[in-house]
């Protein structure tokens, strides 16, 4: 009964989405207040029904109702409660419902937090979001009903894929989806602007916090996914340039460009047409990401569906969204001329340069991701494009981005002098290069990669502090603390996020340069030396979990006779699927992780033990945390809450990012 109620709620949500899509847009076109007023209640009602449907599905999982097909294939009565709940989105249908729910949540957030928007504009934004929602709920109802019954019900479920039974997977999908779907708000603002022709500073200011928050979610989601791959896949890699990772990284790159382009549009009224195009692209690429991951064209743990009808439906949805918005863009964008002019040496130019570079990087990642799929679809052969391609492209293109990123904040908007800035930043540049070369030799890895990475990181860190010092020094008198208190949150956000990039680069560079790995055959009681540590294999015992049987090894890690940690990696077999899993054990530290995983047991009873030494890997996550915190600070800036002054002229507030 409960699953049927859920299904019914989903149908009602579809009806409300239809109302939300059509009525406010017609109302806005006819300037009919009462029709426009339908937008908010329709969106909020839709949210309630989707949450109810989601709750019903979760209930089927929690109560192990295996007459529901989805629960039967993705849960098991012995699955721990947490993974019963997260199992709801560990499959195609449930993850679509999560997608629709986060879209609905974003829409409700817009109705709540953007009360000061003009009614007609608001109606259009909500209407556009309604259309997107309509498409996704229709997709579920037509091709992927999460409430399908299995009659007669299965006596037992098949369990959730063991790879997904992990704490990282509890938060990764919701974060990632909130990020993906969050770009729909910027998209809806852009479409509403195209419909009305309103592209002023106020429009950019409305869009900015929404874009930033979506970017924060996406960044956090990608970082958590990367962390999960690192400790769960059992071989210590943190980024594989796997098509599924790329599917989330491409919108991230474009979203990053969009955030910065919106800043220029708000402050200077420039780049308007480019900003709109980026807003359309960021969301279209999020949809493409969903298509790639969910349709089964990519083969990975994410590809639940291999039903071509579903792929075709998402593809059609994608074509409609991209086609309609680009047509609208082609029709309206020629009117988007003007905006402030700017000199060659100006903050505007650095932001433009980085925007173009980020777009090029996104395009080249997209090429590497899609090209094998095209060839395959056209029967021209099977190829794969691996990490070497992406690294060969990514590093040289991102290097100028990182250099320019720290130049920008030192330059004034509109026009500045090259000589002054170069003189200010030359010492930092020289010290950075020396640091890069010095560190590379000091750690015994004098490669281009290490020198470049450390130089870039040093450049970011040094200029960050120089920027902070400059910010505290200039301005009209007052004590340092009073100057500190006048710095807006957005400026701190910019500073922290850019600083985070530096920390991130340190982690990426050092883990790549000086990590080491050793696969060993070990007997009980045997010792081995590895990366300056002594590793003692104390043996293996059985250690069964709620829904798996495991062999658990105990390994002592010591250094110069001093015990450091006892690590217990496991080899598990999940009972329901009979699927083996490697559960690594980590000793996590600020400057290094030691990572141990179990390979196979050999016929003589020995085990293969895989040891990894991962220097500075925590700095990768720390860098991401700084970026996320920076984004949160930027979005929390007070001026976004003072929307009453919404028609402030472009270029009025010249400070801050």
């Amino acid at each position, binding site marked *: 009964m409960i699953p049927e109620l859920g299904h019914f709620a989903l149908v009602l949500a579809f009806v409300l989405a239809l109302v939300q899509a059509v009525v406010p847009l017609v109302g806005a076109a006819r300037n009919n207040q009462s029709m426009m007023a339908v937008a908010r209640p329709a969106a909020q009602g839709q949210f309630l029904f989707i949450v109810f449907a989601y709750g019903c599905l979760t209930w089927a999982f929690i109560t192990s109702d295996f007459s529901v097909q989805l629960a039967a294939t993705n849960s098991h009565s012995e699955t721990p409660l947490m993974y019963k709940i997260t199992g709801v989105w560990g499959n195609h249908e449930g993850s679509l419902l999560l997608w629709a729910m986060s879209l609905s949540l974003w829409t409700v957030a817009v109705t709540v937090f953007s009360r000061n928007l003009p009614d007609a504009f608001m109606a259009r934004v909500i209407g556009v979001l309604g259309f997107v929602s309509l498409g996704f709920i229709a997709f579920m109802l037509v091709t992927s009903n999460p409430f399908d019954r299995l009659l007669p019900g299965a006596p037992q479920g098949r369990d959730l894929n063991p790879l997904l039974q992990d704490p990282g997977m509890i938060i990764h999908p919701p974060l990632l989806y909130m990020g993906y779907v969050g770009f729909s708000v910027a998209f809806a603002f852009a479409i509403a602007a195209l419909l009305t022709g309103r592209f002023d500073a106020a429009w950019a200011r409305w869009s900015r916090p929404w874009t930033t928050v979506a970017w924060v979610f996406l960044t956090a989601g990608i970082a958590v996914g990367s962390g999960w791959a690192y400790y769960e896949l059992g071989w210590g890699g943190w980024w594989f340039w796997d098509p599924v990772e790329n599917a989330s990284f491409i919108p991230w790159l474009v979203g990053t460009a969009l955030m910065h382009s919106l800043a220029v549009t708000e402050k200077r009224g420039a780049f308007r047409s480019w900003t709109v195009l980026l807003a359309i692209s960021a969301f279209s690429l999020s949809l493409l990401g969903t298509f790639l991951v969910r349709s089964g064209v990519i083969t990975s743990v994410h590809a639940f569906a291999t039903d071509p009808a579903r792929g075709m439906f998402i593809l059609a949805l994608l074509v409609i969204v991209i086609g309609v918005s680009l047509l609208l863009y082609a029709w309206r964008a020629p009117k988007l001329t003007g905006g402030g002019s700017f000199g060659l040496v100006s903050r505007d130019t650095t932001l433009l340069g980085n925007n*173009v*570079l980020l777009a090029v990087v996104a395009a*080249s990642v997209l090429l590497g991701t899609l090209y094998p799929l095209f060839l395959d679809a056209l029967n021209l052969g099977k*190829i794969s494009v691996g990490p070497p*391609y992406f690294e060969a492209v990514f590093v040289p293109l991102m290097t100028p981005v990182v250099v320019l990123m720290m130049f920008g904040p030192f330059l004034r908007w509109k026009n500045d002098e090259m000589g002054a800035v170069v003189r200010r930043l030359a010492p930092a540049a020289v010290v950075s290069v020396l640091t890069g070369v010095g560190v590379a030799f000091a750690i015994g890895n004098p490669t281009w990669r290490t020198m470049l990475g450390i130089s870039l990181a040093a450049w970011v860190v040094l200029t960050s502090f120089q920027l902070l010092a400059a910010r505290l020094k200039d301005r009209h008198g007052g004590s340092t603390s009073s100057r500190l208190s006048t710095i807006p949150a957005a400026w701190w956000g910019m500073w922290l996020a850019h600083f985070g990039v530096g920390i991130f680069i340190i982690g990426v560079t050092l883990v790549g340069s000086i990590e080491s790995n050793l*696969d060993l055959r070990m007997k009980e009681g045997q010792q081995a030396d590895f990366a300056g540590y002594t590793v003692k294999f104390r043996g293996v015992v059985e250690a069964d979990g709620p829904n798996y049987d495991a062999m658990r090894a105990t390994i002592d890690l010591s250094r110069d006779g001093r015990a450091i940690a006892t690590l217990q990696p496991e080899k598990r077999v999940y009972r329901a699927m009979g699927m083996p899993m490697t559960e690594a054990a980590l000793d996590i530290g600020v400057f290094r992780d030691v990572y141990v995983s179990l390979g196979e047991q*050999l016929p003589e009873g*020995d085990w293969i033990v895989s040891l990894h030494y991962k220097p500075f890997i925590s700095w990768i996550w720390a860098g991401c945390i700084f970026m996320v915190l920076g984004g949160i600070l930027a979005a929390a800036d007070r001026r976004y809450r003072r929307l009453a002054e919404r028609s402030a002229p472009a270029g009025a507030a010249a400070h801050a990012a």
Partner: protein
Amino acid sequence: MKARSKRLMLVGGGVALLAAAVALVLSAFQQNLVFFHTPTEVMEGKAPTGKTFRIGGLVEDGSIQREADGLTVRFAITDTAKVIPVSYRGTLPDLFKEGKGAVVQGTLGPDGQFRATEVLAKHDENYMPPEAAHALEQAHKAGMTVSQ
């Protein structure tokens, strides 16, 4: 500088930058493509020697052997028509098993032995890597035409 020449410089610089980026992307692309071949194609000499490529198929039953160090593994990949011997040093994926699908990436030695640097297996029990499925399908088709 006049506004117009400034704009020209900006546009010119942008175009030069884009051209450089495109050149970089295309050259990286050409150098790093990894082609896929079925065991039959490899036996027919269609695969390059000394260049990295992928082979997919089933791990032949009874073919997995470990050397004395316990780390180097020898096995054979088959599309049911032809068999390619493979050697690999390192940890195998959890789902690597005899009789199941797998994809190996590496180079073909002059002795006809494939030296794998990477072994990919399925992500769950019910699922076959598409490259492996493709290889079996090709061999199956070829077998059908011969027998008809």
